[in-house]
């Protein structure tokens, strides 16, 4: 695949390196001449000095035949514009934008950016996973269906302890899909499965029912 990467900072550099290792054709566009030089010294001439939001720069590197454009500069507005120019001027089939501010997800989606990656959210989720007191962790978002896969750790004081799944008042649309007990093998819960202290429950839920799901298992 031919992939254009906008932004040759740390993220752009490692991303390009990984893509090159997978034998993709990669061009990085970077505004800072010093960064360009470093990248070209280390990765071979893959970096073009220029503004990735400018039509002329994108035309020069043949963005019209690109299969994908990934914008990973540090500025949300630059990533948005680079993706919009790629999409509307060069008909690039797939555009991916990095977002600093997770709030921008709605506008990026509305404007047709195919995939958004919020570095802030990704890091937050990882931190949450490592913080034992946090009872609900996001594992995965299934964007096109508007669903989330979450993990809930059952603590001794949780109201679900000793209860069967069918006795829980789970919110509409939420499903418990896997129970991982502390010392036994994981199992797929049935309505008769009794939850225990220390169980880790993997559930599928619409994002707006997340809090209700947490309350149904943990109490308020």
């Amino acid at each position, binding site marked *: 695949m031919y992939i254009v990467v906008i932004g040759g900072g740390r993220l752009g550099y490692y991303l390009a390196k990984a893509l090159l290792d997978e034998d993709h054709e990669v061009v990085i566009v970077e505004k800072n001449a010093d960064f360009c030089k470093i990248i070209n010294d280390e990765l071979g001439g893959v970096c073009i000095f220029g503004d990735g939001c*400018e039509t002329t720069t994108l035309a020069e590197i043949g963005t019209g035949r690109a299969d994908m454009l990934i914008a990973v500069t540090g500025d949300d*507005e630059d990533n*948005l*514009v680079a993706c*919009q120019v790629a999409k*509307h001027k060069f008909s690039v089939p797939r555009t991916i934008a990095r977002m600093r*501010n997770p709030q921008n997800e709605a506008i990026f989606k*509305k404007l047709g950016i195919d995939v958004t990656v919020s570095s802030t959210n990704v890091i937050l989720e990882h931190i949450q996973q490592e913080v034992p007191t946090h009872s609900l962790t996001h594992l995965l978002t299934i964007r096109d269906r508007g669903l989330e896969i979450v993990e809930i750790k059952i603590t001794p004081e949780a109201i679900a302890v000793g209860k069967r799944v069918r006795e829980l008042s789970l919110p509409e649309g939420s499903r418990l899909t896997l129970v991982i007990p502390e010392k036994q093998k994981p199992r797929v819960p049935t309505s008769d499965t009794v939850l225990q202290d220390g169980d880790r429950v993997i559930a599928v839920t619409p994002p707006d029912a997340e809090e209700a799901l947490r309350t149904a298992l943990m109490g308020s």
Partner: protein
Amino acid sequence: MKVVIMGCGRVGARLAGLLDSDGHSVTILDTDATSFRRLPSTFQGTALVGNGLDQEALKRAGVEEADAFVAVTQGDNRNVMAAQIAKHIFEVPKVVCRIYDPLRQELYSTLGLETLGPTTIFAQMLREKLES
């Protein structure tokens, strides 16, 4: 009408002054408080420190009730993004943004954004002056 202006540079401050003296309710946003010194001393509107790309800051500026939104910061991309947030998220009826880069201006006009390109306009005016 109620107008929110993003960017208190020379143009933003001047526009704020003009609209204010016409009796409109003006709120002007800038990330740098010192830029408000450009506002005329008679300015009756609101000057707010905040980033117009931040939806919370836009709400504080009253974008939800605004009749018009104008983006005139120094950055084309910032203007374009803020204008699109105002138009598509907050559904402000009239949104205008400045884009210096003629190619980007052309693109966003075709995407339905109301844009003004100082580069093109000014070059044409200069040509007229020189050729007349």
